């Protein structure tokens, strides 16, 4: 042990010595300020002699050279350029006495002798100062000259090779084609290539074969699906609210918007603008509104006892911090409580940005609802079709009515006619759907048989007492004198209920009527809270039940917004429920003259314009045209003689309109940003506390960055436009760095979330700038950038680790080899589904719940949460979708994701770790979904490959790796198959058990022992290092 420890330490020391961050970029003689000095000053000095005014000691700043060259409070000069001996800084760094020496022992960050020497040398060389690299706008650098130009394929390679040549390293040759197609397919689509694609690529020896492959891959909708998941980590998208109850949140249309944005190659500047400020664009489209979900995707709470102002503050802080990280890689969170310790950012900057984001037109608490306002509705294709049908049928109904009215032959009766009569109307409230706005409870099961009216009835089967109900109808029914409730019921003659009960909610549920036995003891018998209506209706036929509204205590004027269908035992089907009412009904007349004079007497109340104005006009004169319109209105709405003809049409019209409303209220929604009419003022919050309100600050961008353009509006739109201005030093760099990271595993700036002075310097500063400028000037062309990355020779290198380069550069920051690292969680699962042929490649829509072990939600969930119990979806179209579509409960994310380093989506994440743990091994070996994938892979192999074990093993292996196994590998696979088959032949029962794992029944063209053995071979192959890795 001891020996190994020592050896390990030695190894670590070597690694430290050659860490690429230490490899000087400039590498000319002399000290490199950006690389060697600035990080030291930042880390050891800025906290007390830097941007934070409140914590600045000694009256000078080390982050501004003018200050450091001037006089400190002590009267001494911190730095005298060219003379370390005269520089107080150097004296203090080298002081013997602990109380004089800097940095103070208490901060626990001593400087090494080499570091002090470097600072001394820098002072001696003139203390030349440069602005922090990332705060200066990038300019297109010169292309470096390289010797090995034949290796170079595009501009990227110039920069990479120049650096390698300086380091005395050599790049690798291009990877073999099988490796290359698998690598690029994963990087562009997140999926492995199919065998057909591999074969086609291998067979294509034209010089542009690879480029055409890349172009094909970029056009797949898988490109957007793959890109989206990186972005969704950053946007902290989830399917629950994330705090306290952690209830369901409906937000997937935003996820789909992101996918689509990448697929249609929405320029990144527009991508930025629409997400930050789509609602402020002129006439925003629904898609642009959906995009603003970016600023609503943060976690929210509705915890009882929360203080609204504090919750508001936390929501806004999340928006500021996330925007800072995602677009600028600035660690804004530091400035929430005080000025930044390292970067020239102040608390004022923070709260000036805060002012852009604090005026959401909605409650900061989520109400535990899936759709805390503001939201927009989103339609599926089939819904859109239905909507169009409904609208056109409304149109034709209206035309039909208008025609009938026009053609109606009306003659004023000769004699005076009787009084106007108010005819009740039968208003069906629930038919094939619940009324608009209704919040259902219980299991509303709509069935197609038996049906009384329309297409569906709803079935209630009860063991003991059970019910379905809704509340919250957005258009409550208002009672009038004499109204009668009705519903149609069909009792299952085999299994009749023992009691039926109807309950209405007009503020409370104390309005009940029942038939049959008195088993349900709610309310008080013999009062409106529990009226006995008589025996149960006959079973096996549709029977209409009626209840006078007054009988259950619903007086005229009461407004009913909820209805419950309750029963004790048995099965009942319900249909066509509603109210026979006179509420809101205009009386009908037999005489136009009488009607019009009544309208005039009543001041035209209830008439639409312009009839209203005419009814109120002095003197009873109507032009001919006006007379015609009055007559038409009368015929259509108030003439008793036309009721019979027109009422059914009106009912149809009403039904269609109600259906549209119902669709509106049940459509998928997604959270969006909308600005309040009056922006909230923003104040500096002392120490970041919501109740420590300091001075008011206006909206403004951080002072150290270029100003907003003069013509930009002072709102989120202006802020977004400012971010994508050419003068902005960060946005383009940060974006290209993240794309680079996705492909190469590590960003050119490793700290993709921090471009500030505490972040790591870029490994290739000029390349980063070149890419950033190129990206911006290309029109922020994301696919174009991707193509440049994967077309480069740098990317196409073999990924074998050359011993020398491996030692010099274990992290492959210099890229003397191609990228090689473990696939992300989503790619692993998608690969397994894809190679096994199980993948259901259906884009978009609500998130799905593939199986996971029981109890994961219940172990942590709030008892009253609507996500406390996990119930797996059923059916391939749900459980075999790409992992992007898996439902993410943020307080208990799916283990298939979290075990492989996917974030919980509670907070913005722009880079994932890549760990290697035994839990990962257990999951890949034993998770039923992966076992099922192994089964699918085996099944497919037996169906598609030749009959020999070797042919099968080779085929299976190639499905997963894109290459043929070597002879030795093949021998291993065949031997493994043989051994497992022998074992399963001994215990065929075990084979049957293994075959039964999965959503669908197994379908093998082989005996069980053979099939089971192949499943285990497939299971092993899916666990191979080569298969879980992008090579």
């Amino acid at each position, binding site marked *: 042990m001891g020996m*190994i420890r020592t050896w*390990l330490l030695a*190894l*670590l020391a070597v690694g430290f010595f050659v860490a690429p961050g230490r490899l000087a970029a400039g590498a000319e003689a002399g000290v490199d300020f950006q690389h060697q000095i600035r990080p030291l000053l930042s880390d050891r000095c800025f906290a007390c002699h830097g941007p934070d005014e409140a914590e600045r000691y000694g009256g000078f700043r080390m982050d501004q050279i003018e200050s450091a060259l001037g006089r400190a409070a002590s009267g001494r000069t911190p730095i005298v350029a060219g003379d370390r001996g005269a520089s107080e800084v150097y004296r203090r760094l080298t002081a013997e006495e602990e109380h004089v020496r800097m940095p103070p022992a208490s901060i*626990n960050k001593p400087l090494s002798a080499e570091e002090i020497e470097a600072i001394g040398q820098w002072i001696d060389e003139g203390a030349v100062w440069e602005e922090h690299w990332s705060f200066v706008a990038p300019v297109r650098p010169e292309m470096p000259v390289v010797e090995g130009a034949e290796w170079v394929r595009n501009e990227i390679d110039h920069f990479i090779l120049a650096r390698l040549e300086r380091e005395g390293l050599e790049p690798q040759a291009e990877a073999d084609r099988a490796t290359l197609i698998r690598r690029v397919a994963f990087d562009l689509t997140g999926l492995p290539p199919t065998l057909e694609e591999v074969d086609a690529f291998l067979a294509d020896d034209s010089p542009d074969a690879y480029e055409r492959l890349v172009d094909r891959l970029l056009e797949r909708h898988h490109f957007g699906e793959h890109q989206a998941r990186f972005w969704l980590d950053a946007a902290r998208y989830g399917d629950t609210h994330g705090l*306290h*109850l*952690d209830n369901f949140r409906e937000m997937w249309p935003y996820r789909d918007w992101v996918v689509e944005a990448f697929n249609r190659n929405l320029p990144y500047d527009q991508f930025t603008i629409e997400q930050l400020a789509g609602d402020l664009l002129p006439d925003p489209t629904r898609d642009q509104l959906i995009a603003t979900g970016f600023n609503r995707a943060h*976690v929210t709470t509705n915890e*009882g*006892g929360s*203080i609204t102002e504090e919750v508001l503050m936390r929501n806004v802080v999340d928006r500021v911090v996330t925007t800072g990280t995602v677009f600028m890689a600035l*660690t804004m969170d*530091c400035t929430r409580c005080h000025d930044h310790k*390292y970067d020239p950012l102040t608390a004022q900057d923070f709260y000036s940005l805060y002012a852009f984001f604090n005026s959401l037109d909605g409650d900061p608490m989520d109400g535990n609802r899936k759709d805390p306002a503001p939201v927009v509705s989103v339609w599926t294709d089939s819904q859109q079709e239905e909507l169009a049908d409904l609208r056109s049928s409304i149109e034709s109904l209206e035309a039909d009515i208008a025609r009938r009215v026009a053609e109606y032959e009306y003659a004023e009766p000769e004699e005076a006619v009787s009084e106007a009569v108010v005819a009740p109307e039968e208003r069906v409230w629930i038919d094939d759907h619940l009324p608009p706005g209704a919040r259902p409870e219980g299991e509303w099961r709509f069935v197609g048989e038996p049906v009384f009216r329309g297409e569906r009835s709803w079935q209630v089967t009860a063991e003991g007492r059970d019910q379905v109900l809704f509340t919250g109808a957005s258009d409550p029914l208002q009672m009038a004198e004499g109204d009668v409730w009705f519903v149609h019921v069909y009792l299952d003659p085999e299994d009749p209920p023992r009691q039926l009960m109807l309950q209405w909610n007009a503020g409370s549920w104390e309005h009940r009527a029942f038939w049959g036995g008195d088993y349900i003891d709610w309310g008080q018998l013999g009062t409106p809270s529990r009226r006995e209506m008589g025996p149960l209706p006959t079973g096996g036929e549709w029977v209409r039940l009626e209840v006078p509204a007054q009988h259950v205590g619903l007086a005229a004027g009461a407004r009913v917004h909820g209805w419950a269908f309750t029963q004790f035992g048995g099965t009942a089907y319900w249909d066509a429920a509603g109210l026979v009412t006179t509420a809101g009904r205009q009386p009908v007349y037999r005489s136009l003259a009488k009607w019009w004079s009544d309208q005039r007497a009543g001041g035209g109340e209830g008439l639409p314009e312009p009839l209203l104005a005419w009814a109120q006009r002095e003197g009873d004169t109507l032009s001919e045209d006006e007379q015609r319109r009055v007559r038409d209105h009368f015929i259509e709405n108030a003439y008793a003689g036309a009721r019979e003809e027109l009422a059914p049409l009106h009912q149809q019209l009403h039904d269609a309109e109600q259906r549209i409303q119902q669709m509106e209220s049940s459509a998928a929604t997604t959270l969006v940003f909308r600005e309040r009419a009056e922006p909230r003022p923003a104040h500096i919050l002392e120490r970041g506390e919501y109740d420590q309100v300091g001075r008011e600050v206006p909206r403004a961008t951080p002072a150290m960055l270029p100003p907003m353009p003069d013509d930009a509006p002072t709102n989120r739109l202006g802020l977004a436009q400012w971010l994508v201005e050419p003068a902005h030093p960060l946005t383009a760099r940060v974006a290209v760095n993240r794309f680079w990271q996705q492909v190469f595993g590590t960003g050119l700036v490793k*700290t993709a*979330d921090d471009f500030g002075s*505490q972040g790591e310097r870029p490994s290739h500063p000029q390349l980063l700038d070149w890419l950033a400028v190129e990206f911006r000037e290309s029109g922020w062309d994301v696919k174009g950038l991707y193509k440049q990355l994967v077309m480069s020779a740098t990317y196409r290198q073999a*990924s*074998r680790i050359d*011993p020398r380069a491996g030692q010099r550069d274990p992290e492959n920051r210099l890229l003397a080899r191609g990228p*090689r690292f473990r696939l992300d969680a989503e790619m692993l699962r998608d690969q397994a589904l894809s190679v096994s042929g199980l993948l259901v490649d259906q884009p978009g829509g609500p998130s799905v719940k593939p199986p996971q*072990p*029981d*109890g994961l939600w219940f*172990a942590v*969930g*709030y008892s*009253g949460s609507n996500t406390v119990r996990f119930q797996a979806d059923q059916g391939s179209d749900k459980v075999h979708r790409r992992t992007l579509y898996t439902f993410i409960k943020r*307080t*208990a994310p799916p283990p298939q994701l*979290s*075990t492989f*380093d996917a974030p919980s989506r509670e907070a913005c994440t722009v880079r994932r770790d890549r*760990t*290697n743990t*035994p*839990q990962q091994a*257990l*999951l890949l*070996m*034993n*998770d039923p979904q992966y076992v099922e994938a192994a089964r699918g892979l085996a099944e497919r192999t037996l169906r598609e490959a030749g009959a020999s074990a070797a042919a099968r093993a080779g085929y299976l292996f190639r499905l997963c790796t894109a290459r043929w196994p070597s002879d030795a590998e093949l021998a291993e696979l065949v*031997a*493994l198959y043989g*051994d497992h088959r022998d*074992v399963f032949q001994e*215990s065929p029962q075990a*084979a049957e*058990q*293994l075959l039964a794992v999965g959503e669908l029944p197994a379908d093998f063209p082989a005996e069980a022992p053979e099939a*089971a053995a192949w499943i*285990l071979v497939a299971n*092993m192959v899916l666990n*191979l*290092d*080569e298969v*879980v*890795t992008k*090579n």
Partner: protein
Amino acid sequence: MDPRHEYARTMTRRHFFGRTGMGLGAAALASLLPPAPASAATATTGGLAGLPHFAPQAKRAIFLFMAGGPSQMDLLDYKPKMEARYDQDLPDSIRRGQRLTTMTSGQSRFPIAPSMYRFQQHGESGAWVSELLPYTARMVDDLAIVRSVHTEAINHDPGITYLCTGSQLPGRPSLGAWLSYGLGSANQDLPAFVVMTATWTGRAEAQALYNRLWGAGFFPSKHQGVALRSQGDPVLFLSNPPGVTGADRRRMLDTLARLNEQTYQTFADPETQARIAQYEMAFRMQTSVPELTDISGEPDYILDRYGPDVHKPGTFAASCLLARRMAERDVRFVQIFHRGWDQHGNIAGDLPNQCRDVDQPCWALIQDLKQRGLLDDTLVIWGGEFGRTIYCQGTLTRENYGRDHHPRCFPVWLAGGGVRPGIVYGETDDFCYNITENPVHIHDLNATILHCLGIDHRRFSHRFQGLDIRLTGVEPQHPVLDILRSA
């Protein structure tokens, strides 16, 4: 075993040890070391160089987390003077502008609800303990009861996240993740940080927990707590698929290792070696975890000590027994979450049940550790995310009442590794509302826990987004040395 395989496996092992010049990943190497004997585990894998900072008093810790906010004046903080103030309003001079949750901030009055439970002094320390905790009362001389812990959070989600991760907002690593990151694992076959979520019998509607409470935050996910479950596989996906035996798995892993070795020949990527080692550890866990959770070998007198619930998987009692078994196996940090302590109403109905769930098992755990000599180097912590108000929430009667959240004072007890036994630390006022002596912020508590494990919390930080982040926050904090032996 097939001699072919045996030969190959030996070769593979020899091969690993032979390949020293090639940047073999530390994790891979560590996992190849022979597993330490369960009792005398000194070998540590992972962890930071330079840690522990000083000789630790405790090698491991067990945190018994009472989620919801136990009512301190009904349990451990005796307030006899309140009896005379029944139904009187809490004086403003005591409340002093303390912000209230919006569950009671709208109440027209804040009537004092004295505890309905009898308190007695116990042990040599003379600590006052309520009749609801008879077993805790028997062991007060083993405990350091700190009555003066305080926090700023007034609601559950931020409060529990704060205590468990040092920040009220999601995103930071949990205490156990910090320990795994800093100290590594002392056991080759089990995770360094294990979490159990126990069942409860008090308030049915219990506050949620969140995976972030044992999450890795910005650390690599290998530091996150591994949930030891009472239903299904104790560790996720531990069991082989139906029909697949351990021998089948061994056979498959042998091929896997050989093929991966060839991959290593091709790419020379140390991650491949690490992966081989992780698969071997997974295989070992398939044995070591069932061994851990199989309590059939425990003698009856031990089981009886934990009470009848110990036979029900998933109870707090069963979890405590497993915690002891993990302490024996040198699992670095075990955390048991027991929910249901959020008594906004019905204290009379729910609190006795909550106490019955935990009281005897806590005592049994301490006795059991003591008996095995493990208490000396195992730190045990008991407490929740905040306390409760002396004033009543809802209707006040002599027989029943409820209490809202209270952040300004609440008790935590500690025992074992490094803790001075038999002391009561910190004072609160007569209303159990404000601390009058020796306040202990939750960051101080965490600093104390780290201290017991040999870590100077000020020097224990991780660079994230440009900041050196500590579990204990940016303000100066102090471990409570007064409650430690070494002070």
